Structures are given as structure tokens and as C-alpha cells.
């Protein structure tokens, strides 16, 4: 026989102020957890989720990032023979040579300067990176035109369609922005893309930075990588998703640090809940003894207090989620210490994060209520009934 939930619900209102304060404590922890988690995951998702599983990214053997990699033209030519490379509609293998450079732009938010990656690509680049969707017009090869990623456009000044952005080694070449592109929220959306030949000319670059090879299917990755890493080419091949996963290591550190702090605060909240529940148990000794004489088992009593704590925690979780919602949709960027360019990210409070927060809140509630409810179950019936 269990106690009706209505009984628990009503009990919350007997000690309104205490319940309210406990709810507030957990809600603050929940809100902090949600904001920090969505901050961290937003950062990770912007980088970590980038890349196509069948794409092989080729860098110079000594380089750690596209921005510090150089590929000589004679090496680039060898990549055409990579085993397993997919073939495009024109019969040419899908090998996209790319030049990755940087330019300095101003943030819309506070006019501070940010280093944005500029990627020069040929037409084949859009077959290899087929998740890229251009709104507006595509740039014309051979013209000083550019398209900008959605994240870059929303974070930095002067990157709207029709604007002119100054690129080049001495920023003397103006490129007209003709379109905005999306790429499923990946790191590309923080970049500016333009024709490779024009970028190479503007930045006086005789070498490419990287090559991306689209394979027939992801299974041929190992064979293709062996060819690129091997004595014939001597470059460094990584699967594209793996490359971006490595880049997101840095944001992971911040996430760990923050999680550590939240865990300590949550432990504090556990004690706050324990305190409240002890008070509730102590205040209802006679009532508990009464329920026991009516035939409710010890287990039912324990369950009743746990449910009550869970209700407090659930309520707090709702409040916490509501409090953190204003942060949703905020856009920020961070500077990678590997590529030395910025990546924009959006703070999105996902259902997954809310579930994690709910789990954390319930955990806090139940752990905090464990000892008090055990004490309630041990209430000596006769003495409690006689007292007062």
C-alpha cells in the first residue's frame, strides 16, 4: 500500500517558505548546470561535429592545422591517384585543394577584433563538402567574390550580402559578398569562402594548405590514408571528422573544469535538501506514527519522503530551466589555440541538456532525502504517538 501522491503534494505547502527556499537552491544549481553545459556543448558541436565521414583531410606531415599546413603542387598532383577517391560528374576525382588563410574582422557585439578563417576553394570543393548550402548567389570562379558562413555573418561586422570585404596580404583586394552558406552547423559556417585562385593571388600564396578527398565510401579510408601517409606522397591523412574532433579537445577542458565546479555546488545542494527533509520528518513524527498504525509499511513511508523530495527537485528543475532559457540562442565565438582562428557557436538548450539537468536535480533530491526518510521509517510508533 502506498501513499497517494496528493498527500505529498499537499505536504509541500505546509512549510511554504522552507519548500520555496529549497526549490530555489536546487533551481540555481540546475540553471548554472544548464547554461554551462549548453555553453560547452555549443562550443564542441560547432567544431566537433564537422566533417563528412567519407572525407579524407590531407595536411603536411608536420602540421597540426590547415592554417599552418603547406602542400607543394607536385605533392598535390599525386593525390589525384588516391585509391578509393570518388569520381565527379566530369570524370575527375573528387580532390579539393584548398587555401586556408585568415583575415581580421570586427565583432558586432563589442567591435573587438577576431581572426576569421578564409578558405579558397574550387568548384570541386562544393562536391566534396556537399553539406554546404548556399543562399543567395554562388561566387563566380575568377571573380573577386565571396560567400560567408551563417555564423560568421551573424557575429561579425560587414559580412552581409552586398558588402565588400577587404582580403589579401595587405588587405588591398576587395571581395564582394554574394551569398551566405550553411553547412549543418559545422565549423565551416564561421568562415569566408572565395575562389581558390583569387585567394592564392591576393595572399601571394604559391602553395595550397590542405586537400580534402571524397572517397567512394568510408570503408576505404584506411587504404586511402595508407597511400597518402606512405612513401609515395609522405603527407598526413586524417578522416575529416577526426580532425575536427581533435580541434575540439580544447573546449572539452573548459567543460570539465566547469563540471567539476557544478558538482561541488550540487553537493552543497544535497545537504540543503537533507536539511529541509530532516525538518519535514521531525515535524511530522506523530503523523508518521499514525500512518504506521493505519498499516502503511516502512517502505511506504520511505517512498513518501523520497517522492516528496523528488517533487521539490522536479519543481526546482522546471524553475531552473525557465531561468536559463534567456541564454538560449546567444551567439559567441572562441579562438582555437591550434588554428588561431575563431569559431562561432550558439548556446542551444537542447532537450538532452534539460534531461541531464532533471536527472541531476532528482539525484540531488533523492540523495538528500535518503537519510531523513530512513529516519522517518525508524520512527518508534508508540513513543511518537504519546509525545506532544
Amino acid at each position, binding site marked *: 500500500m502506498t501513499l497517494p501522491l496528493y498527500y505529498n503534494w499537499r505536504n509541500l505547502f505546509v512549510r511554504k517558505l522552507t519548500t520555496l*527556499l529549497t526549490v530555489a537552491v536546487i533551481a540555481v544549481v540546475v540553471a548554472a548546470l544548464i547554461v554551462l553545459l549548453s555553453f560547452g556543448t555549443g562550443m564542441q558541436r560547432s567544431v566537433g561535429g564537422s566533417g563528412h565521414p567519407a572525407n579524407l583531410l590531407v595536411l603536411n606531415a*608536420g602540421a597540426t592545422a590547415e592554417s599552418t599546413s603547406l602542400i607543394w603542387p607536385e605533392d598535390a598532383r599525386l593525390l589525384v591517384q588516391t585509391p578509393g577517391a570518388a569520381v565527379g560528374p566530369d570524370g575527375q576525382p573528387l580532390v579539393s585543394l584548398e587555401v586556408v588563410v585568415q583575415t581580421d574582422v570586427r565583432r558586432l557585439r563589442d567591435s573587438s577584433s577576431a581572426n576569421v578563417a578564409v578558405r579558397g576553394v574550387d568548384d570541386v570543393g562544393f562536391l566534396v563538402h556537399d553539406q554546404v548550402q548556399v543562399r543567395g548567389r554562388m561566387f563566380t570562379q575568377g571573380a573577386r567574390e565571396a560567400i560567408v558562413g551563417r555564423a560568421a555573418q551573424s557575429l561579425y561586422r560587414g559580412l552581409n550580402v552586398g558588402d565588400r570585404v577587404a582580403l589579401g596580404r595587405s588587405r588591398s583586394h576587395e571581395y564582394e559578398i554574394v551569398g551566405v552558406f550553411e553547412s549543418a552547423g559545422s565549423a565551416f559556417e564561421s568562415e569566408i569562402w572565395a575562389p581558390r585562385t583569387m585567394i592564392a593571388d591576393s595572399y601571394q600564396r604559391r602553395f595550397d594548405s590542405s586537400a580534402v578527398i571524397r572517397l567512394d565510401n568510408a570503408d576505404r579510408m584506411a587504404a586511402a590514408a595508407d597511400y597518402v601517409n606512405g612513401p609515395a606522397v609522405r603527407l598526413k591523412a586524417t578522416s575529416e571528422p577526426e580532425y575536427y574532433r581533435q580541434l575540439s579537445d580544447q573546449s572539452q577542458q573548459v567543460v570539465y573544469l*566547469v563540471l567539476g565546479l557544478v558538482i561541488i555546488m550540487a553537493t*552543497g*545542494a544535497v545537504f540543503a535538501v537533507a*536539511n529541509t527533509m530532516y525538518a519535514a520528518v521531525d515535524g511530522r513524527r506523530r503523523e508518521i506514527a499514525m500512518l504506521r498504525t493505519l498499516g502503511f509499511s516502512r517502505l511506504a513511508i520511505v517512498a513518501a519522503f523520497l517522492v516528496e523530495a523528488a517533487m521539490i527537485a522536479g519543481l526546482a528543475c522546471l524553475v531552473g530551466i525557465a531561468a536559463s532559457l534567456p541564454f538560449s540562442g546567444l551567439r559567441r565565438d572562441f579562438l582555437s*589555440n591550434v588554428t588561431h582562428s575563431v569559431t562561432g557557436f550558439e548556446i542551444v538548450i537542447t532537450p538532452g541538456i534539460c534531461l541531464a539537468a532533471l536527472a541531476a536535480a532528482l539525484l540531488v533530491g533523492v540523495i538528500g532525502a535518503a537519510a531523513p526518510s530512513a529516519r522517518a521509517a525508524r520512527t518508534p510508533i508508540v513513543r511518537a504517538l504519546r509525545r506532544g
Partner: protein
Amino acid sequence: MTLGYVLLQNLRRNPLRSGLTMVAFALPMAVFVVGISLVLALQQVSKANEAELRLAVQNRIALVNALPERLRREIEALDPEKKRIVAVCGFRWFGGRVPNAKSGIQSLGVDPDTFPIVYRELRWTEEEELNWQRDRRAAVVGSNVAAQYGWRVGDRVTLESTVPPYLALEFVIVKITDVTGRVNGMYLRRDYFEESRAERGFRTPGCNVFWLRCTSIEAMREMQSLIDGHFANSPNETRTMDENAFAASFTEALGNLPGLMQGIALVVVFIVALVAGNTMMMSFRERTRELAVFKAIGFSNRRVFGVVLAESVLLALVGAAAGIAPTAAVLSAVGVRTVGFLPITSLSVSPTAIVVAMCIALSVGVAAGLVPAWQAIRLNTVSALRRVG
């Protein structure tokens, strides 16, 4: 019956609750103290930098675009009598990494002649400076890096550069520095670096940053506009800024850590206040009758007010102290080397953080006790005595 005795008895009447409240107080306070100490430590780094009167000159377009080496002479020529500039030192990013290591080392090639002057605060001994000037492979290493790889003065180490032409060079460590802000760096001689680059066909000696040590703050400001003005409309336009402005563009790499810490600190204070308020409410409600007895036997309102308030304050202060003391002990024992990216060797709990935390505990204690204490004054003795507790 003294106030102290009453307080002690009150805390002991429900030791479980007092204990829980203290722990609920102590844990967030520990987080608070760590957070504030971190912010203060970072502030100290920037204050130390300010005192060194340094300016950074970089390419206006992007730091990665190196400026030609000859710009050093041009900058020096802007102040021929050396009234404003003490010395100019060119830096080039080496981007080194121990072979097969996962993460890189902040390693930079520096002009060997002026480096000991521009970075005077590294406290060079005569022998260290001599070794630095004598051996082209000389390197100065920050203590965090040295500790991470187990390097000692005199060791030969090989680093692979992650930037073109991806050199692998051998260095000899001549000095290990634990000066705040330099502990994660490694400085090698640019002449050696450039020569090795030239052997691989990269004959464009250049610098990502020129660091200037100036004679005074006024000189810094003058040089700042003088340099940027001089290179305006040239192929090598510059952006000149002080050391902290330069550093600020990197701290954002961590997603604004100080800001994050301050936010967390605020949240912590809020939690602590709620916990304390909660406890004091419960404690008061339980003792309504007892306080009525106090009043009935002639305790003045002021005295009753004091008893309730003092209990709250005592609980808050003891709780805060219980959180801060172990944190201070642990931090001084462990250090922060594990969190490699911070420019400090060890994070000690700063006295300021402790004072601030105790002040917050005090005010939270007062605030939490105020409502129950006020209610105690307003208590109607007769009806409270009648109430069944």
C-alpha cells in the same frame, strides 16, 4: 547565562542540522574562494605585465602574417636617442612540440641580443646570460613546461615545429624561469631558427611580434601612435598595443574564464544565502515557544534579537571557515600545473579572497537572521506560550 552559552546550546540542540547547514555553506564557499583567487591571480599577472612597460607591434591584418625583420631597425630609428625605447626584440612563432606529444609548447624564436633586456624581469644571472649569448641552441623554458617534461638546465631537447618548414631542432636549456606569466613559454634564439629556415628555402626572415620595452608610460603612449603612424599606408601596416591588450586577444581562447568564474561566484553567494535563510527559518519556528519563555522571564527585546541574529552569523562564519581552510590547504599542496593553460605556477588562496568570502558569510548570516530575529521581537509572548510546539 551568557550569550555565548545560549548560542552554543542552540547549535548543539540539533547538531545534525547545524552540521548539514555548515557543509551546505562550506562547499559553495570553497568554490567561491577558488574562483575569486583565480580571477585575482590572473589580475596580478596583468598588473605585473603593466609594470614592465612593454608594447607589442604586430601586423595589422593578422598576427600570423609575419612582419619583415628589418622593421626592428625602422622602429629603433624612430627614437634614435633612445629616450623612449629601451630595446626592441623580435619574436617569431616556432609552434614547437615534443615529438609525438599530444599538445604543443608555446615556443617562440626571439632576438638573442635584446631578449634579456626586454624580458629583464626573468632575473638573469650573469652565467645564464653568458650561456644564452654563447650557444645558438640556447633556450629559456618556463617552469610549468620544464616540470611537465622533466627538463633541467643543461638538458638537450628536440622540438618539432608545426609551422612551415616544419623544422626539427635541438636546443640546450640554459635557464628555467618561474616568473609569473612566463611559466608556460619557451624562448629560443631566432638567429638559429631563421638560419635553419633558410637552409630549407624559406629566406624570409620575419617576426610575428616586435616587443618594445619603453622608459615610461608616456613614452609607451607616444611610441604607440608614432609606430602605427609611421607604417600606415605601407605594405606592412602595424597595430601596436600594450601587453595586456595583446594578452586579452588570447584569453578569449578559453571562453572568457575570468567572466565565467565571476558568474559562478555570484551563483554561489546566492545558494549560500538561500541555504542559510532556510535554516534560520526552520530553527526559529522550532523554538517559538522557547523564545517566548525568554521574553516571559524578562529578556529584553534587544537581547532576544541578538540571540537569534548571533546564531545565524555564527553558523555562517563557521561554515565559511570550514569551507575555506581545507581548500587553502589542498590548493597549496597540489598546485595548478595540471590545468596547464594558466599563466601561473601555483594558485594560492589569496587573503583578499578569504576576507571577501568571510564578509559575504557575515552579511549572509545577518540577512538570514534578520527576519527570524524581527519576528522574535514581534512575538506575542502569551499566544506563543499557549501554542503547542
